[in-house]
């Protein structure tokens, strides 16, 4: 029988048992919709995290102390003191793939203004820190080279601190106390809100690193050195360059492990993406199992259908249908059930995706998930329709036509 006629016969058969066909489609519809929604949420979250990270500057490179061994015991990185001012100075002198560098020390504690106080973190930074982070000031100005040289007690403050302490008053020019030491506020950072992990990026103070090292922490080592590569593409070159400079400074012989760690935002992005991918795969696999169950449902209905239509099969054979004609007929029918279910499932998944947005879930339907759904539905139709179709084709026409 021609393909077109097979499709007509299949439509007639499906339509004459419309409700039953719909029920057997339901499994496919729900399964495909679930897969589409899971993929959309996975893809959407990934995209939003990527956007978040790239907003933070994809060319940022961070150097921290790390992997130091003393007598075979690995030390806590924060207790390590391997990063020195000399490292920072060498980088500034020799950098080729790096644009901006800033040494960093931090201190956490209470910040007081008048009768109000809040707990926050003070970042001791260099002059280029805002350029690395691509942050801007909303009001006032950033400290100068001179402030760094002198270790001036000045700071710029984040919006959260402003809101906690100043109650609408203009903070610029005011004196606050951080860990009992007076600081003059000279600027206010533009708000950046929360990052994708829910961390408040506005709860901070930034002061000259010299001030924090000498007056607050009394330390000579650095906790971090932040850099920015010339471009995101040159991040790897920049990392190689920085590694070489610091290893030379630290006099590490060949084969000796680094006593510092260099990580890049791009690297972090990859890690986050691959974590999201894993989560997406798990969700999709779970949803895909419902498709397997749906396929078994179709097989069941097709087997019932073959038994019910034994007499019809016998008649078709007696008027000249070959085994292949009969098996094609049932195969096309199961593919049509499965594909129709697939199309409805895609529509339902699309609607479900739209419904997810007001709930605050980032979604984005990847185009390939639709093609994959079609392909999977065809495979289900063929795979689970094959056995019933073979069963129909192998019927003996004499017995089939007598079947009551």
């Amino acid at each position, binding site marked *: *029988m*021609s393909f077109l*006629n097979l499709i007509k016969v299949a439509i*007639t058969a499906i339509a*004459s048992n419309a409700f039953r066909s719909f029920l057997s489609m339901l499994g496919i519809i729900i399964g495909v919709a679930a897969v589409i929604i899971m993929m959309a949420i996975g893809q959407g979250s990934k995209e939003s995290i990527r956007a978040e990270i790239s907003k933070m500057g994809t060319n940022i490179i961070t150097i921290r102390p790390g992997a130091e061994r003393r007598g075979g015991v690995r030390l806590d990185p924060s207790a390590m003191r391997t990063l020195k001012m000399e490292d920072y100075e060498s980088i500034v002198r020799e950098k080729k793939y790096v644009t901006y560098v800033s040494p960093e020390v931090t201190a956490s504690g209470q910040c007081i203004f008048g009768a109000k106080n809040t707990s926050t973190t003070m970042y001791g930074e260099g002059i280029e820190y805002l350029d690395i982070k691509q942050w801007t000031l909303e009001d006032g100005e950033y400290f100068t080279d001179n402030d760094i040289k002198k270790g001036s007690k000045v700071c710029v403050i984040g919006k959260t601190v402003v809101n906690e302490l100043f109650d609408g008053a203009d903070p610029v020019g005011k004196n606050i106390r951080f860990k009992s030491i007076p600081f003059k506020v000279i600027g206010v950072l533009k708000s950046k809100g929360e990052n994708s992990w829910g961390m408040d990026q506005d709860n901070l103070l930034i002061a000259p690193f010299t001030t924090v090292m000498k007056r607050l922490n009394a330390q000579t080592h650095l906790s971090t050195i932040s850099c920015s590569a010339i471009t995101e593409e040159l991040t790897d070159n920049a990392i190689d360059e920085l590694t070489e400079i610091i290893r030379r400074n630290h006099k590490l012989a060949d084969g000796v492990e680094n006593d510092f760690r260099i990580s890049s935002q791009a690297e972090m992005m990859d890690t986050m993406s691959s974590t999201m991918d894993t989560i997406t795969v798990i969700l999709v696999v779970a949803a895909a199992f419902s498709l397997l169950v749906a396929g078994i449902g179709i097989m069941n209905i097709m087997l019932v259908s073959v038994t019910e239509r034994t*007499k*019809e099969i*016998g*008649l*078709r*054979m*007696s*008027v*000249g*249908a*070959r*085994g*292949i*004609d009969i098996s094609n007929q049932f195969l096309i029918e199961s593919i049509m059930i499965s594909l129709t279910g697939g199309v409805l499932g895609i529509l339902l998944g699309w609607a479900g995706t739209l419904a997810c947005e007001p709930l605050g879930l980032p979604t984005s339907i990847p185009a390939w998930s639709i093609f994959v759904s079609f392909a999977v539905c065809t495979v289900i139709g063929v795979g689970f329709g094959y056995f019933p179709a073979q069963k129909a084709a192998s019927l003996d*026409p*004499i017995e089939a*036509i007598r079947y009551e």
Partner: protein
Amino acid sequence: MSEDNRKVVIELQDVRRDFQVGSEVVHALRGISFKIYEGEFVTIMGTSGSGKSTLLNQLGCLDTPTKGEYYLDGVAVRTMSKSQRAKLRNRKIGFVFQSYNLLAKTTAVDNVALPLMYNTKYNARQRREAAINALKAVGLADRLEHKSNQMSGGQMQRVAIARALVNDPAVILADEATGNLDTRTSYEMLVLFQKLHAEGRTIIFVTHNPEIAQYSSRNIMLRDGKIREDTVNTNIKSAQAALDALPVANDD
């Protein structure tokens, strides 16, 4: 008899058909040989279990002989594959069953066109044309779009006969084609078969009813899988006359 001038449509040579039932072998056909010529109207009779349906399945290429040869229109059937036989049924045979076997909820035209669906030489228009012609031939020109569940038993059997005619077969095979019908409708069917016979069609008609033999041109009696009698009927009765002689039903 002028056998040699007539075209042989069916030739059986010592056809045997054994069925294995458990450890026993049932000999349903025990060496059947005959020739059926073009344009014959043959009735096959015999007691229940004598092998009539088994023989008809052989003639209809639904089954193959355990032994012996069967030539349909000059083609040896025994060595054919399943799908070759399906094609042969499609092109050379028309079946009429006792229980009509129409597709449910399907119009007369679509039912009649069914065999042509399996013949790629026909397109949709040609199928419809051929189906309408066949339905006209059985007197159902006014029921083309009626569905099978909207018709009487006699009408359904007419549709089934039209379906058997639609591929212009070498032979029409009927198994108890009047078995489900009342006397009057049975005679109407016989009138139709006689009309087809008069048009030169070859018909093989299996029946329990001895009266029907009087309306055919030849009668083969089976017993225990063998031919007991094979007689040519030179005095064919007219089914139309018998139908006219029947008392008229009140509700007609």
